[in-house]
């Protein structure tokens, strides 16, 4: 709990400092140069994470709402997710350079959502690997996703262009130096979700499959399949779980939390449709208190109503002509 809080405080302080410098120098740019101020946290041998906020994309956080990571192997550095913007990718690469001189060996992208891959421009000289479904999704929706990020976080996105992953990967176990990485292809959170289990350290990068104290997002979700993904995580022997959004934990509590939320969400919307409620009314349904630990709860719930309601409703209305 304390890590993200400290991080938020640190960010706030950083912003305040930047604002003061801007004012003092009379700079034309009121907010001064933007920086994510990425600081890697070592979470296991050779393994580091840049821990992001648990909020939604904002102009204050520049889209830094993810836990990207890297593993320093004898065969070079493995990067997992590249962040929401070119700037993030560049800062991430510079921060990795401070930890190790080793070259970047490969980048893995877990799904098509913006914060996973829009920083890939900074890694254009190395292979960028993703599931075929993720590559297809980025080819199809990438420019729309990038446009929307420009709208949401503004100047942080400057110079960011769609960089499509270059290397399709499949379910397999691959060895980089002394690290054995198990690539686990799933679908549910999106049509193509890549989880990466470092068998050497027991660290599982879940991508969007598990959220931890942060409300799960559903723009490309099929809830029934997502629940099966969670069963798959339950079957894995792990030491540390790194969700893309939320807190890093050594247990699987957040697998249960994600399952609890999805089950409640899907059941509640189905019940509401069946009970004659309108979609606009469903936006305001009460959410049980136990979910208050999830950040951006009401906002993400409302987004989920937009994503999930129309299909449930369509299936529940009989044809009458």
């Amino acid at each position, binding site marked *: 709990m304390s890590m993200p809080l400290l991080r938020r405080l640190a960010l706030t302080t950083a912003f305040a400092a930047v604002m003061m410098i801007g004012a003092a120098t009379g700079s034309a740019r009121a907010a001064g140069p933007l920086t994510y101020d990425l600081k890697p946290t070592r979470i296991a041998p050779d393994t580091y994470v840049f821990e992001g906020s648990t909020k939604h994309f904002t102009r204050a956080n520049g889209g830094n709402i993810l836990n990207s990571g890297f593993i320093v192997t004898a065969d070079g550095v493995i990067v997992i997710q590249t962040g929401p913007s070119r700037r993030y990718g560049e800062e991430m690469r510079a921060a990795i350079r401070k930890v190790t001189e080793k070259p970047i060996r490969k980048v893995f992208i877990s799904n098509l959502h913006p914060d996973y891959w829009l920083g890939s421009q900074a890694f254009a000289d190395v292979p960028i690997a993703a599931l075929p479904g993720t590559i297809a999704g980025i080819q199809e929706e990438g420019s729309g996703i990038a446009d929307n990020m420009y709208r949401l976080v503004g100047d942080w996105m400057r110079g960011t262009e769609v960089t499509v992953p270059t290397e399709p990967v499949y379910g397999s176990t691959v060895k980089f130096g002394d690290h054995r990485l198990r690539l686990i292809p799933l679908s549910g959170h999106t049509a193509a979700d890549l989880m990466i289990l470092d068998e050497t350290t027991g660290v599982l990068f879940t991508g969007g499959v598990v959220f931890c104290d942060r409300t799960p997002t559903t723009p490309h979700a099929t809830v029934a399949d997502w629940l099966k993904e969670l069963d798959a995580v339950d079957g894995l022997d792990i030491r540390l779980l790194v969700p893309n959004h939320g807190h890093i934990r050594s247990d699987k509590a957040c697998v249960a939390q994600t399952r609890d939320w999805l089950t409640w969400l899907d059941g509640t919307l189905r019940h509401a449709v069946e*009970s*004659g409620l*309108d979609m*606009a009314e469903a936006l305001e349904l009460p959410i049980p208190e136990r979910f208050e630990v999830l950040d951006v709860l009401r906002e993400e719930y*409302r987004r989920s109503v937009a994503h999930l309601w129309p299909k449930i*409703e369509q299936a529940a*209305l009989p044809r009458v*002509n």
Partner: protein
Amino acid sequence: MKYALYQMGLAGAMIVVAGTAFAASSPSDPLNSVMWEALRDQYFAGAPVVFDNAVRVNAPAAAEDTRAVPVSVDATALGKVVEMVAIADLNPFPLVLRYHPGTAAPYIATRIKIQQATAVRGAARTADGVWHVSGVMVDAAGGGCSAPPASYAQKDWADHVGEVQARLWPADTDGVARLRLRIRHPNDTGLVDGIPAYFIETLQVEAQTPGGSAELAKIDSLEPVSENPVYSLDVRPPPDATALVLRGRDNQGGEIRATIPMPPPGARPAMRPAMSLKPADQPWSVGQ
């Protein structure tokens, strides 16, 4: 707290507005929309207007899908209402629909396209001729009105135009029954290159009874209503109704007709959280 302050503001704003003095003393728009005065003159021409939170407008603060933003307008707190409208100020076609509730409760919900961040309003005209206006701000990425309907990606869309899905829930103790309609239709605005305007214009709900048919409610539907429009209404079917009939027409003369069966025995009336939610539970209400 914020809501209470706003209520006080509203009370001030509602010291109003009658007859010829209208233009000079018209209350200012709590949503500060640049379009308000033009829209007021266009859609409420000369009629007295008050901003009134008794009209509840539900819509998300941010549109997740600008082609289908859920909006409901509930004026049941006003009692008898003659006519209702929904307006999205900054849409190329601001007027979304006019609703003539007839014997139905003054409540309508649908999904709308919005072109950019805008005030979304609901208004209800009471028998004394006064328009009661309320609304919310909806933020949006844009493009909802000028994006081609997804229908056209399906080769056989034309075979399905006019298909109706519907369900009627049993009447509650007050005689009000929830009706939900979904109609397959591109509902195109005409703003996409080479695609002419093609949208549902009128929908009318009637009750079939042994003594003939009786009109329950009527919707004048317009361009901003989403593709494959969905409506929720709260109708009052007569006790001897044997079925409801939906009749409609699009702007190219296409007819819509469907017979909606009465609910099966044992079905339960629709849930109505709207009535149990206090306004304070609605943090994005007017004045945010």
